[in-house]
C-alpha cells in the first residue's frame, strides 16, 4: 500500500478531512462505492485503501497544503479553509453541501452594534483564527480593525477584554450563546468542497471528472431529498 502512494499514475489519492467533517465525508464516499470501513475503525493508520482511491486522512486545514503540492491529487475540505489559504492554488470542483456553517462577526450581548462602536472609536479589536478572511472582510468595507490571532477557544477573547469581538465559524451557535455572545454580521456561508491539484486535474482528467460527477450526483440527490 505504501508503494502505491509514491507511484506516478497509481490510484488517485484523496485527502480526507479528520474531525467534524469526517463522518459526512465518509457517508458521501460510501454512496459512490468507496470502501470506508477501515477509516471508520479505530486504526492509528493515516492511509487507507478505499478501492479505486487511496484515502489519506489529515486535518482539514492541511488539505490545501497536500493538494496544492500534488502530494494528494484530490481532497475534501471546508470553504473556510480554502478562503483562508487562497494563496495555495487548487481547483475547486464541487460544492458538497456538507459541513454547512457560517463565518460571523460576534460580540457580547448588550454591547452596542459593532458599526456604532467603530463609528465612535474608529477602530475595533477583533480576535480570530481566520486572519485572512477577517482582514479581507473589514478591508473591503474600509473598516479599521486590529486583528488578534488566537489558536484556542476564541469565544474567550471578548469575555475577558482581549478583543471587542470575534470572527469565527459557527455551526449551531450554541457555543456563542453559552458564552454570552451574539452574531452581529454574517461574513460568508461555508460548505465542504471537492478540490483537485492543478496538474492532476489536467492529466488525470477522466478519473477526476468521474469522481466529481458522481459526487455531484449524490449531492443533488441529497438536496432533492431534503427539500
Amino acid at each position: 500500500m505504501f508503494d502505491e502512494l509514491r507511484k506516478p499514475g497509481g490510484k488517485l489519492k484523496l485527502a480526507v478531512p479528520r474531525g467534524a467533517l469526517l463522518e459526512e465525508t465518509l457517508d458521501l464516499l460510501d454512496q459512490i462505492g468507496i470502501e470506508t470501513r477501515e477509516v471508520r475503525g479505530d486504526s492509528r493508520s493515516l492511509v487507507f485503501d478505499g478501492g479505486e482511491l487511496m484515502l489519506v486522512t489529515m486535518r482539514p486545514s492541511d488539505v490545501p497544503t497536500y493538494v496544492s503540492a500534488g502530494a494528494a491529487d484530490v481532497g475534501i475540505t471546508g470553504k473556510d479553509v480554502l478562503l483562508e489559504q487562497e494563496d495555495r492554488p487548487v481547483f475547486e470542483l464541487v460544492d458538497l453541501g456538507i459541513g454547512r456553517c457560517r463565518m460571523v462577526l460576534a460580540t457580547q450581548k448588550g454591547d452596542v452594534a459593532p458599526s456604532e462602536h467603530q463609528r465612535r472609536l474608529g477602530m475595533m479589536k477583533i480576535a480570530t483564527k481566520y486572519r485572512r478572511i477577517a482582514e479581507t472582510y473589514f478591508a473591503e468595507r474600509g473598516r479599521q480593525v486590529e486583528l488578534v490571532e488566537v489558536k484556542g477557544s476564541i469565544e474567550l477573547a471578548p469575555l475577558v477584554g482581549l478583543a471587542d469581538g470575534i470572527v469565527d465559524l459557527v455551526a449551531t451557535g450554541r457555543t456563542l450563546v453559552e458564552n454570552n455572545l451574539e452574531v452581529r454580521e454574517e461574513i460568508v456561508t461555508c460548505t465542504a468542497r471537492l478540490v483537485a491539484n492543478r496538474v492532476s486535474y489536467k492529466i488525470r482528467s477522466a478519473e477526476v471528472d468521474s469522481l466529481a460527477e458522481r459526487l455531484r450526483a449524490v449531492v443533488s440527490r441529497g438536496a432533492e431529498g431534503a427539500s
Partner: protein
Amino acid sequence: MIRPIPPGTRDVLPDEMRELRAIESALLGAFEAAGFREVRTPTLEYAGALELGDGRSADAAYRFFDERGELLALRTDMTIPIARLVADRFGEVEPPHRLSYIANAYRAVTPQRGELREFGQAGVELIGSPGPEGTAEVVELLDRALAAVGLDESVIGLGEDGIWTALLEDSGAGPETIERTSELLVSHDLVGVEVALRESGLDAAVVEQAVRLTQMRGGSEVVEQARGFGGERFAATLDRLVATFQAISARSVSRRVQLDLGMLREIGYYSGSTIEVYDATVGEIIGGGGRYDDLMSKFGMDLPAAGFTLYIERIHKAQLERGGGSRRAGGGADV
C-alpha cells in the same frame, strides 16, 4: 556558526550541479538544433522597462536604486527583457527572430512554502512569426525539448486566450460578469464561477454551456463538444484554436497536446494561444508560455511573438521522480 542564506535561495552542491548542467545543455542543444540562438540580458533592468511590458507580471519583488538614484529591478521572467532586446537591437534585422535563453529569474515568495525566490528558466522566443504556424513551431520545439530531458510522458496543455470572454459576450453577459468570472477562473474556483454565472441572471442554458466549457480538456473531441456554443465570436476563437492544433498535428507532435478550453493564464501579456506543461510527478506546472502578439508593439516594434519557458528545478525534480530510487540522494531538488 551557520551563516544562513535567504529563504527561497539555495546553494547547489557538485552532484546536483552536474545534473542541472546536464538539463541545461540538453535543452540548449534542442534549441540550437531548431535554429534558436542563445542570448543573455542583464539580471538587473530599469524598473520602467519591465513595467512597459506588463504592469502586473513585471511587478518585480526586488527593486533598488543605483548610484544615480535610478530605480532598478530584478527581472521576473525573460520574455520582457528579450522583447526589449529585440526591439532595440534587431531593428535592421529581417524577422523572424529565433532566440533562446538559460537564466535565473526572481519572484517574491510566501514563507515556508518551499517556493523559490531565485529560479532557473530555459526557454525560447519566436518573434515575427504569426500563429498558427509560429505557435506550432514553438510547440514542436517544446516537444523536442521535453524529449531531450527524458520527459516523454509530460503533457502540453494548449488553451486559447479570449475564449471565455467570447462565449460570455456572445451570451449577452455584461462586462462585470465577465471580469468577475475571469478572476474566479484564473484562481481555478469552478464552483465560484458557476455561482457567479447563476447570480448574474444569465439564461440557465447559457450557464450550463459556460460551466461545461470550464471543464473541457482532452483531445480534438472537446472541440466537437463545444461546437455550437455561444455565437460568432466564440466560433471564431474556437476556430483559431483548431487551426493551431491542426498546424501542430501537421508537425506530428499533437500526441502529447491536451486541448484545454478552460485554461486562463494569469500573466497579462498573453493573447491567443496559451501553453502549460504538466508532468505527473510534479504538482505544479513545469513550464508555460503562449502567444503575445501585442507585447512587441509596447517596445515600438509591431511583431507577433510566441514562446515558452521551462522551470529547470522542476524539470530536475521530475527526472528524479521518474528515475526512482534517487529521491533521497537528490532530495535537495525538492523545491
